[in-house]
């Protein structure tokens, strides 16, 4: 199994979710994160005090998939999340050893 972690621009979440559901991916977890790569942050000013904020808000998706679904899922995410402008994000794919469904106790592929 593979764990796909995608950090994307927040407004792209709906598109990515639709693309993955179309593929048959049954669930995902979403977290709000902050980060930066090559994209620059912004400056805030409060009564003359300037704050340079490096971190940009992003959305992180985690999806666990069977090995054969990994490539298609990554393709789908890339296509849906891409705007062509700096800050589109990154996708990491890691090997996952075990998965469990808490309600039934099913493991590995049965849990996905």
């Amino acid at each position: 199994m593979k764990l796909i972690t995608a950090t994307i621009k927040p407004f792209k979440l709906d598109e990515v979710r639709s693309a993955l559901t179309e593929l048959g991916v049954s669930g995902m977890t979403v977290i709000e994160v902050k980060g930066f790569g090559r994209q620059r942050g912004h400056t805030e000013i409060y009564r003359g005090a300037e704050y340079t904020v490096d971190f940009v808000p992003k959305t992180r998706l985690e999806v666990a998939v069977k090995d054969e679904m990994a490539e298609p899922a990554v393709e789908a995410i890339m296509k849906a999340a891409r705007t062509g402008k700096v800050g589109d994000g990154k996708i990491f794919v890691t090997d996952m050893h075990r998965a469990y469904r808490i309600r039934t106790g099913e493991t590995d592929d049965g849990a996905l």
Partner: protein
Amino acid sequence: MGTDCSVNKYSGRGTRVMAGALACLALVLAPLPSLRAFADASSAPATTSSAPAAAATTADATAAAPVAPADACPAMPTAPCTVTNDKINSGDTAWMLTSMALVLMMTIPGLALFYGGMVRKKNVLSTLMQSFAITALVTVLWWFIGYSLAFTPGSTPYLGGLSRMFMNGALSLADSKTTTVSHLAPTIPEVVYSMFQLTFAIITPALICGSFAERMKFSAMLWFMGIWSLVVYAPIAHWVWEPSGWLAAKGVLDFAGGTVVHINAGIAGLATALMLGKRIGYGKEPMAPHNVAFTVIGASLLWVGWFGFNAGSEVAADGRAGMAMTVTQIATAAAALAWMFAEWIIKGKPSVLGIASGAVAGLVAITPASGFVLPNASVLIGVVAGVVCFVSATSLKKVLGYDDSLDAFGVHCIGGIIGALLTGALVSKEYSGMDSTVLTQLWGVGSTLIYGFVMSLIILKVIDMTIGLRVTPEEEREGLDIALHGERVE
């Protein structure tokens, strides 16, 4: 500076229990004198007596003192006195009842939110707590002795007397159909005037909190504000507003408290900022406001409530109150725009924190002038306040190196000084019947700055030497909400 504030012999639980017990005992015993006085039906500082016939009551023949109009108001009263109820103007009274509520709203929740939004999230509750606790504390002290010290004539021009301690004698009597009034507001009941003035006595110390935000011990703050309200606020209010006060006698004009409230609070704020020192990480770590929306709501409540502050200071529902309202609105708008444009030009973007701050600066500056100037002058006052306070709030502390966290000095003291001096320059004698000069106004400005600064430092030093002023570095890091109050906002 006051950073060694850890455990000492006065911070133990036993001390707190004792202090609480003493406070409760004092509160319980306090009304006793007034009960006796009520039975005697004698009230306080009488001057001359021409007796309007407050007819002696028939029914209950309490052999003791008859209902004596010994303190019936003379033609030009100089102290609280008694009038028959037909002298009470219901329009004035209705307006003043409203004004009291408006000005109280300025502190809770106006100022509370204004400041609360500007601190970091971990300190928001402690900031709100300061405004709320000061409201309660100053109220009790006002009833106890503050009102008497500020608004009764005393044996010197520097402080009032004790005749209205526990607000003794300020009341209406059903049998004689009389009501006591203050010599400063002869058409409304004295208690209404007292409560109106209380709201000023409340907001002044609450303003000081802006300077020491995010680092002062709650206990130290309570002690400081309690003592300060009696030793600094009451005397200065007396000097400026009590006709026998020495600044009033000099001709210093302060319609609604530019000096008494704003310069006073601002310079005390500077004293606290210097005594407590800068916040940990100041200048290096981000300390951005956690909720500017709160601040805007607070500023809006301040703006609306300020009509009670300025127009209410006319203590009558009349044309001058209407003009005070008018110049307040115009000056505030002018100042808000001035700050906004200044920031837009100099910093590149007009911020909502900026426009809100500009409005507050305008409100502060128009305060002393509000009963004395006409609309054209108010535009000038607003623009000057907006621009100058923009500079003082954004640059002055960086240049001079103190941490006046929420700009109590930068906006209130500087704005108050601008207003006080411009009052001298722009007062319309034809309209208001009063006159002053910039030089005369300087007496008020200077004496408040000096007395306020020195006394604040003394009180702070005494508190620092006994219980300590500042929280520990660990508490400051953790956040005052959790550390001092055991609460937080998610």
